[in-house]
């Protein structure tokens, strides 16, 4: 799992490096072609929600270690909820707004914006699916003190997705305002 995370980090790293490469190659105005600089309000709200979700996930991991079934189910559920709200905001609120301004095929900026955020969103989605999986197993009582690798792996993955969001936020939303 650690190695998967390393290689995934490189993947995000490559995308973000491509973002800056294209940005500094292009005209001084960024975003180009009259696309407004992304507003920070919604992304910051989303960030808070996503980062908060690391807390219940951490607690779920602890509950699994202690073999506390009830707490495990509860915390997993809470983490799932927060993650789902984040993804919902991205898909239902942010993207429609943005698509009115520009699309992935407008120019390279659009391609970068949707690919990087979409790629992260995809990771959140996969995280949610793993969480769902872990919850099903948790309700079946498949985990105990000694057997909870799934929860452990899910926790690591989820924290990773949250940390990557720091970079995505900094790159996509903060850096154009600098």
């Amino acid at each position: 799992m650690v190695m998967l995370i390393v290689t995934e980090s490189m993947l995000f790293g490559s995308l973000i490096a491509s973002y800056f490469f294209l940005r500094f190659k292009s005209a001084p105005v960024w975003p180009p072609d009259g696309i407004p600089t992304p507003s920070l309000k919604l992304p910051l709200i989303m960030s808070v929600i996503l980062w908060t979700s690391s807390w219940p996930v951490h607690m779920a991991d602890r509950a699994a270690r202690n073999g506390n079934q009830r707490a495990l189910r509860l915390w997993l559920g809470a983490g799932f909820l927060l993650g789902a709200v984040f993804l919902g905001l991205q898909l239902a609120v942010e993207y429609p707004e943005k698509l009115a301004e520009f699309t992935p095929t407008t120019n390279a900026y659009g391609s970068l914006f949707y690919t990087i955020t979409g790629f992260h969103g995809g990771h959140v989605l996969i995280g949610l699916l793993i969480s769902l999986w872990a919850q099903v197993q948790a309700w079946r009582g498949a985990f105990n003190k000694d057997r909870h690798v799934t929860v452990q792996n899910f926790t690591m993955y989820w924290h990773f997705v949250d940390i990557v969001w720091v970079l995505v936020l900094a790159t996509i939303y903060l850096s154009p305002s600098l």
Partner: protein
Amino acid sequence: MASVAERLENIWGERPGLITWLETVDHKKLGFKYLYTGMVFFVFGGIESLIIRAQLAEANLELIDPETYNQMFSMHGTTMMFLFIVPVLSGFGNYFVPLMIGARDMAFPRLNAFGYWVFLGAGIFMHSSFLIGKAPNNGWFNYVPLANSEFTPGVNIDFYVLGLIFLGFSTTAGAINFIVTILKLRAPGMSINRMPIFVWGELALGLAIVFAQPPLTAALVMLELDRKLGFHFFDSTQGGDAVLWQHLFWIFGHPWVYILVLPAFGLVSMMIPAFTRRPMIGYIYIVVAEMAVALIGFGVWVHHMFAVGIPQIALSFTSLSSFMVTIPSAIQVFAWLATLVAGKPILKTPMLFVLGFVFTFVLGGLSGVMFAAIPFDLQTTDSYFVVAHIHYVIIGGSVFPIFGGLYYWLPKMTGRMLDERLGKLSFWLMFAGFNLAFFPMHISGLLGQPRRTYTYQENLGWDIWNLLSTIGAFVLALGILITFINWYKSMQSGEPAGADPWEAETLEWSTTSPPPEYNFESIPAVRSLHPMWEQPELRRGPQRPEDGAYLLASGHETLSTSMLDATPQAVVEMPHESPWPVTLTVAMMIMFYGVLFDSGLLAATGVLASAASVAGWFWPTGETQET
């Protein structure tokens, strides 16, 4: 002790039959599969190269049409780079890493099976393009803008892009598996400074892949988005940049070249001690040098792009690191030479290949140093000089060690020796043919012949060199064919090899040839870098518990040890055969074909089937799950 063997046989034995063939997770069977499949692709790539050489034998030939020619050299490069060397080295690695470190299997056996099937699937995927006459036709590094849909509208490039994304799953899975296996499953006492150099080579391969593969995947995904959905990553009219592809590709590409040679170096460092009857000189320097090459390999990618128009400072940096990387490479060469001189070399076939390797690789290294000098590079970019260089490095650095490895290790894998006379004949034909084929390319390159040219005018001074290259290529092919015949004959009627035909130093020789399904009756305690030379009890049969061995004969288990000192930590239960790796691969293949042919239905089916396979894979069975 017989009862222990029987008990282990019951626990580890897989039922013979087609189902097991598909479901096996045994690292030895998978190693064989990798090896065979890789060799089949090697033959494909070889035939493509012979067609290319035939077309170039004389000026103004038109044996095949230009479009077919483009497909030939593209698939030749792609196949050799992605579907032959790394899979074959992974095959050796899969088979021998657990045996060399005294484990009963790889750390993640099902992931291992998945890696193999995806490799096969991706290979079939890319080669299926020939069925509709639309094989990739833009060279193995597939530069944009030529690869954009505007200039290459057919599905040719999509086969390449999607095939390589698909293959990436395999390489990544394999790499992670190697890293974890090597760090966690070494026999007790095999501290990190007692690890065979081949194992170090595979570790370097794993680490380099984990860092190098993602930039390629990112570039491929971006290109496919450009091609299918009209994104603009590489479109300079819309703020994109074609040079971005080159950066991403070579950030991957140059480490990849080292990925191709590092395990092969390790293999050489195994064969030299066995045939000079003395330990390698400078073990620690070789290990540090291998790791240094893997690391510096990430700093040299721009040297593929000297002619692109990059800021001077970046060029200087890359030029510097390109010169720098020669230092650890030279350290290894000198360590090999010193060991050869200090020992008493026995010139069996594997050793001949080692000597051929050293000679060829040094020549390839020399032309490599020339490229690191920017003014020289500007003159020779995209000429046959580059073609000569890459073949000296790759055939010299990887293919010769691989063939030496066949002669060295097949006896362990099949239990039968190969014929020495045929082996030597094969070596000399390969060596002579190789030099005849590729040395003239230096000259035709300096005379200005561009790579990938379909044909050429006569009287440019190129004719004789091209004819020699063509003859050499066919001699090389004949040499290779003789090894294959030798291989086949040995399996029919070769002399029995016995456990340790070479009296070599590492653990794989302590078990029978071929090894039983559980590898070792007891997991031996290791007290030396050369266990077979310095622990005489290993030569007398399975090590006994009073000598420190762990029996682990009551379950499907292997021993997990600490990362540096290899002190025993836990007994790990290993998973049994599983249908899911192959099912998942087929599902993913359906998905990729769906994307290729713009069929949403097919793609969706593939995605759902993949999800179902993953669910089946991870469904708790009461066994300990993989992490």
